């Protein structure tokens, strides 16, 4: 299952990145810190995150605004918000292609988190820790990491988790969302599996970041 990612593809924003797992592709952009656009959003002690998710096709609906809420919950604790007091960080997540049915959001959420991480890095926003996300589906006690559309359709439960990365290894659980019939044992197994998978994703993502640093190297000719 191919993972591809790329940083710094858009010129007008401060940071941007694409992230693709299989047939789900997401592009994110980060602009900021900038002055707060609407006065009432200004917060005196921390930054205001404006997150906007656009679907692959059609107009944004409640599904997208729920994704926005989830992303906000995941990202807010990862940014040093106090450092950007009374400013705004503008985030746009555009789903380019979605490899799941609209009843699911796990691939999109997971890719969005990963692309957003890269975009935040690219924009030079101060983060508390690195973080990455992956997802899996369970059926009859079997766990399938990064399932395809079919496998997801037939699963009894599916899980999305976000872990922080410390020393190149997944470290701490940041966020986890499980839907469908599941048990406590399954949850912990899933968390272990995802944590291992994130280590794999991390390898590929590190490449991208490295490449990004090389490309941005200021003194080149």
């Amino acid at each position, binding site marked *: 299952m191919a993972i591809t990612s790329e940083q710094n*593809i*858009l*010129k007008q924003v401060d940071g941007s990145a694409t992230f693709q797992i299989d*047939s789900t592709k997401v592009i994110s952009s980060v602009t900021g810190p900038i002055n707060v*656009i609407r006065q009432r959003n200004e917060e005196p002690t921390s930054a205001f995150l404006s997150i906007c998710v656009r679907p*692959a096709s*059609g107009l944004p609906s409640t599904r997208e605004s729920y994704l926005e809420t989830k992303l906000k919950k995941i990202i807010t604790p990862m940014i040093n918000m106090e450092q950007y007091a009374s400013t705004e960080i503008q985030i746009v997540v555009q789903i380019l*292609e979605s490899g799941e049915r609209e009843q699911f959001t796990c691939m999109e959420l997971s890719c969005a988190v990963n692309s957003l991480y890269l975009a935040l890095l690219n924009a030079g926003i101060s983060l508390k820790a690195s973080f990455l996300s992956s997802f899996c589906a369970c059926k009859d006690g079997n766990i399938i990491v990064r399932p395809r559309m079919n496998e997801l359709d037939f699963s009894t439960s599916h899980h999305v988790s976000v872990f922080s990365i410390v020393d190149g290894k997944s470290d701490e659980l940041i966020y986890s969302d499980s839907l469908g019939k599941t048990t406590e044992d399954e949850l912990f197994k899933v968390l272990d599996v995802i944590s291992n998978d994130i280590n794999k994703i991390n390898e590929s993502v590190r490449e991208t970041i490295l490449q990004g640093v090389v490309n941005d190297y200021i003194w080149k*000719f």
Partner: protein
Amino acid sequence: MPSTDNTLPIPNILTLHSLFSSNPPLRPSLRPLTEPRDLKISIINKDNGNIEIKLGKTYVSCKISAIITKPFEDRQFEGIFNINTEITPMCSPLFSNGGGNDFSTSAPAIIPKTVISVEENEDNGNDVIMGGGAMMGLGVDQTSIEIMLSRLIEKAVRRSNALDLESLCIIAGQKCWSIRADIKFLNYDGNLIDAGNLAVIIALLNFKKNDIEIIGNGEGSELVIFDENQREKVGLSVLHIPLSVTFQFFSTESIERNIKGEKGVISRKIKEDSDDEDDVNDRMEVDNDEVGVESESRSSNEIIIVDATSEEELLSQGSMTITLNSNKEVCQISKSGGLNIEQGKILECCTIASKIVDKWTKQIKQVLIDEEVKNRDLKIEKELSVVNDRRTS
């Protein structure tokens, strides 16, 4: 961002001014006035018509989706085709979410004082208020940009009947295909109209929908949808390829001279001191007398460029969009306000546009052929592998 090519490192308005007012006028990138930037087409997913194009640094993605629905009451023999254009802050922080809001606070410092300021109008959707003559110039508020953009692309593709709507009808009055094109503007560097138009058309040409068949007649009929393993997907019936070319107009003259012509020059000389400084629009005015003398010999000295970058749009004093296909049929012309242009110049523009459209059409067709070849190879490979599988099993 450091850059090694010939473009200006910082969008320097003054440099732009002086380049344009030089004789002959130059563009910052030294690109000829009537030549568009390089068009790069990449097909992401051939079946669902997901494509990306790059026109210079302007980066647009378009995706087509098709579903079966009920046709409109008043158009029972036709399918439905919608184009969705939305501008998000992703393509430039100058734009905000949801449209119609002020972006003055978030805008970087490069924006010069606009000729006419932008007024935010949140509640009154009907009153459209805008600034400068440029179509996509930054002095224009987002609502009007979005309206013009969506209308121009819609007229170029939908109203010119590029997509054969009648072929989308399945059972008259009951079922039809509804095709939807979602244009996503990812990066803004001028000329969103042409790029958006190109993206939709290329996506439509690449899109393939599932084959269907109606089995039985009358009440007992069933609609069967085949997936791609059963029957090959079928393309849409695209009748012609309309492409837009947007021109930006510049002038080194004052607005008065543009309107009044030579007479204006004379009257200006009479009351020179009063007029000289207070013309707000005279941003680009160079030395009065010299140009005045020159312009008497020339009929007019509007500078016309195609495929403007964001900096050029910033400065533009007027724009015109022409949509053509390679059969030399004009599908739409839209010009309002901005510099007044002689009719000869407009026809000249049409000829230029026609050349550009021909060039683009050729490129698009080449991409299609390449894609076809690639596809065919894949298919043969697949068939062979299946035959192999059978033998082994």
